[in-house]
């Protein structure tokens, strides 16, 4: 643009026009020139970019450098005291350095600010190492001896730094493997036995509860009666359809069959549902004698399980005893104390198997440092957290985040897409539809914590409690009332459907007064059906929950915070995003496509399925991507509905039912908050905040990237650019 101003010099008039006054650049007002606006708009973009790049750059640099091994320095102070540590931070005014000094279990401060004025000398002695341990964080010292303790006798197997490191390299891998084996035995095998015991106990408990229930016994609805009721309902439906069809008068050929089929399915569904809820084949509950025999069998099984438990425990003890033989003596320079095995046993040196890694940075070349760097990253990604999350890895956190994001996406996308389809394609475009659309858009602006509160109150405590133990005894309807309600519901539904059919005007004519009244009654009847149906479900006398026995003991299964409810809460939170973007995508499918399809004799649904939805798919995916990104980054509602500081049990496992949606989970967003603000040792946790943030960014980016690639492919196919 700016060039235009400069170029707008009158060309030499070829006699056609008298030469005018020469143009003066300076006289052009500033507002008419292009440059100021270019600078202004470009400057705004630069400011934005600088901030974004600064943010990402900071996260990446901090996140990437955390695991790089730094030299272990031996600092001698003016007063003569000596300590080992690594630099973690610097201050300019006053000039001081923060050293990580570790050795917490012998009462040292793990982090220490040292004023530069106090420092007499700094060395990097080749023997000084940093030991990463399973417990009590790091230890700084010099490896002096490796010993093997057999029957209380210490035998020195290596003496001096070089020899100890050689012994460490030779033996460490197998020691760690034994340790992992012990861990596995404790977690998996002992856990399995424990859970089996719990199952046995719950079985007896549920039978006891069943026998205590008085309203069930003596009121079973026999199967023939039930089949009769279902048939009557079906017949009623048939009559309703026939009447509706005759009155309607313009049904489509083949629709008759489809409608009957739909209603038969519906009737059969109600029948089967009733059968399942009522379970007439289960007959009467157990007799006292049967219960007694069940108790006997359970007790017997418990003895067996206890024996198995002891056997596994013995194996663990044996392995641990073997582990206890190999010990390292790593001496710190201040008082000459060595790293203890436990804080309460300061005289026992640390076991080899307790050492995660010895980093002798001062003696390492760059290659070895890279090795340590990569091994730390691998540990971070693949292991469970230790030491109140300040050490170890974030594997359960990653699993929790990815699972939650996927679950929320597969929940929210179909729901949102179907709702948007109705809103855009089927709903009459009027004031009600506009209101709903505005309301949906506004939902996107509700603070996410509100969703958290709602999720906790509704999903966890209401729906979850219902899933666990069914409706509370006082709200259960008497069976007679319940069946009467079911009849009313079905009747209301048939009438609502009939009203809908009758109120439809013949195409090309205006609806009559009666039809308008019928349509409104139809709405009222559908509302009534919905309310009745919900009431019937929440007040059913035939459902006592899937986890009744556990709930009776006060330990809810789905009735508390968990993965499922968190995913549903986030799905609700991201629903507006999906609905809005799907609506836009549907609207952007050209009308000529729809007309072409209708012109070919396609029905509305065929057009939607074959033309509109495929055409809108890139936009729908965009919505899913946005929902995913928003859901993955959300923390506040998760704190209420399921994210926890520590849960070693993953939401997926090899044990039935494989997907444990009732479990609480760890989440990267919450983990960052926890590391940064809830950690008992915030100095130690701080570097992990960066790496965890980096990881969260990477995961969101990866999930988005996958979706973006799919979308790009779809879009290319739709526009025919790749042929």
């Amino acid at each position, binding site marked *: 643009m700016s060039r235009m101003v400069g170029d707008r010099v009158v060309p030499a008039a070829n006699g056609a026009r008298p030469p005018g006054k020469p143009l003066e650049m300076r006289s052009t007002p500033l507002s008419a020139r292009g440059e100021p606006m270019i600078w202004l708009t470009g400057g705004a973009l630069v400011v934005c970019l600088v901030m974004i790049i600064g943010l990402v750059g900071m996260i990446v640099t901090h996140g990437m450098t955390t695991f790089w091994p730094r030299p272990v320095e031996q600092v001698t102070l003016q007063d003569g005291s000596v300590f080992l540590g690594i630099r973690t931070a610097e201050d300019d005014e006053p000039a001081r350095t923060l050293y990580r000094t570790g050795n917490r279990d012998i009462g040292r401060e793990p982090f220490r600010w040292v004023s530069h004025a106090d420092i007499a000398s700094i060395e990097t002695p080749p023997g000084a190492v940093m030991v990463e341990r399973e417990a009590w964080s790091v230890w700084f010292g010099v490896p002096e001896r490796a010993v093997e303790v057999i029957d209380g006798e210490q035998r020195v197997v290596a003496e001096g730094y070089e020899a100890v490191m050689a012994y460490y390299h030779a033996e460490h891998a197998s020691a760690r493997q034994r340790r992992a084996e012990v861990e596995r035995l404790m977690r998996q095998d002992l856990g399995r036995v424990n859970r089996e015991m719990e199952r046995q106990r719950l079985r007896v408990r549920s039978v006891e509860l069943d026998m205590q229930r008085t309203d069930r016994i003596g009121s079973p609805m026999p199967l023939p009666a039930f089949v009769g009721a279902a048939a009557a309902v079906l017949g009623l439906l048939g009559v309703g359809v026939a009447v509706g069809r005759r009155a309607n008068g313009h049904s489509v050929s083949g629709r008759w069959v489809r409608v009957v089929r739909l209603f038969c399915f519906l009737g059969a569904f109600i029948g089967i549902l009733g059968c399942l809820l009522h379970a007439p084949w289960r007959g009467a509950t157990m007799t006292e004698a049967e219960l007694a025999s069940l108790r006997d069998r359970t007790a017997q099984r418990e003895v067996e399980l206890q024996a198995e438990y002891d056997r596994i425990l013995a194996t663990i003890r044996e392995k641990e005893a073997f582990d206890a033989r190999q010990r390292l003596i790593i001496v710190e320079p201040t008082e000459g104390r060595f790293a203890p095995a436990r804080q309460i046993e300061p005289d026992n040196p640390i076991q080899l198997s307790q050492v995660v890694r010895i980093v002798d940075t001062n003696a390492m070349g760059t290659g070895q440092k890279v090795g340590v760097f990569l091994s730390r990253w691998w540990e971070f990604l693949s292991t469970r957290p230790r030491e109140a999350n300040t050490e170890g890895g974030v594997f359960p956190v990653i699993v929790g985040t990815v699972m939650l994001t996927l679950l929320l996406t597969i929940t929210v996308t179909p729901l949102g897409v179907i709702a948007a389809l109705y809103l855009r394609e089927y709903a009459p475009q009027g004031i009600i539809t506009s209101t709903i659309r505005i309301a949906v858009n506004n939902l996107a602006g509700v603070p996410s914590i509100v969703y958290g509160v709602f999720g906790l109150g509704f999903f966890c405590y209401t729906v979850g409690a219902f899933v666990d133990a069914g409706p509370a005894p006082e709200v259960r309807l008497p069976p007679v009332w319940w069946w009467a309600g079911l009849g009313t519901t079905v009747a209301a539904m048939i009438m609502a459907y009939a009203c809908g059919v009758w109120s439809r005007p*013949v195409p090309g004519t205006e609806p009559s007064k009666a039809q308008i009244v019928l349509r409104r009654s139809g709405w009222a009847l559908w509302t009534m059906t919905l309310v009745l149906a919900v009431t019937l479900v929440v007040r059913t006398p035939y459902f006592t929950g899937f986890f009744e026995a556990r709930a009776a003991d006060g330990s809810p299964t789905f009735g508390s915070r968990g993965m499922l409810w968190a995913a549903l809460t986030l799905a609700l939170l991201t629903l507006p995003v999906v609905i809005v973007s799907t609506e836009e995508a549907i609207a952007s499918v050209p*009308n000529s*496509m729809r*007309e072409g*399809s209708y012109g070919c004799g396609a029905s509305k649904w065929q057009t939607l399925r074959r033309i509109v939805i495929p055409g809108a798919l890139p936009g729908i995916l965009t919505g899913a991507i946005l929902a995913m990104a928003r859901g993955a980054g959300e923390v506040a509602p998760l704190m209420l509905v399921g994210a926890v500081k520590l849960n070693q049990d993953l939401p997926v496992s090899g044990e039935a039912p494989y997907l444990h949606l009732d479990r609480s989970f760890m989440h990267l967003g919450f983990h960052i908050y926890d590391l940064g603000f809830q950690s008992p040792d915030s100095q130690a946790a701080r570097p992990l905040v960066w790496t965890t943030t980096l990881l969260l960014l990477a995961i969101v980016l990866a999930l988005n990237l996958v979706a973006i690639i799919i979308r790009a492919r779809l879009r290319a196919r739709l526009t025919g650019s790749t*042929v």
Partner: protein
Amino acid sequence: MPYAGTEMSEKPTQGLRHVAFQTEPEKTQRVEYRVIEAIRRGEPVDPSVHASLKDCDGVIEIDSFNLWYGQAQAIYDINMKIPRGEVTALIGPSGCGKSTLLRSINRMNDLIGGVRVDGRMRLNGSPIYAPDVDVIGLRKRLGMVFQKPNPFPMSIYENVVYPLRIDGENRRRVLEEACERSLRSAAIWDEVKDRLKQSALGLSGGQQQRLCIARAIVADPEVLLLDEPCSALDPIATLRIEELITQIAEKYTVLIVTHNMQQAARVSKNTAFMYLGRLVEYGPTADIFQTPALPETEQYVTGRFG
């Protein structure tokens, strides 16, 4: 209500009343527009239908047909028969209701909210606007091609067999056979036979329109409705489509809406001239263009107004 809030390809209500012949005063003063003036005043007129078309074998019979968009009437009392096996053209200035009339035949106007009709239309003797007519079935008996080529974003093959697919036809052999037959009929087979699996959007405009014709005839319709099929095409593509129309007229009854008088003269056997929603004159094309009954028609087809 179908897809409200999105743009329709045509908005027939707009300007309906305001479109008048843009005539040069010195030319028009000599001719007396009796019918046209009556139409402008909103009086009912008696269309001049030539004798040969009054009692022909009509595949589509239109009887006192009226149509309203909301409150605005777009079509007034149309009575005409579309003769079987021939090409019939609808001509007239913009907004005269010719497209609307065409779209009423396969009831595409049902998709627009607020459309109301009155009168009768019959396809091979069976009423189109009876309450229990299956609109989907009706549209399957009528092929339609639109103003703008609208191939679906799928492969050429899938485009052509789309009408069969939605009928549940999935036998590969049947589909391939129908596809080839129909593409040959639409004179595009040689151009696309090697790239049937490629996207139809990669074709040129003229090819796309012929593909749409192939799609319209694949299910063997009784009548082919063409709504200004060449208006978005260049002259060469137009020529090819016109040749194609002449070819397929041997097998199908064709009803074509066109803006282009030369096109009507070239491809059609009969021509109907419409003005402001009313039929003005309807007769064999040769008569309409050479010896029209009304001076208005002569003025219009010779391009002196319109």
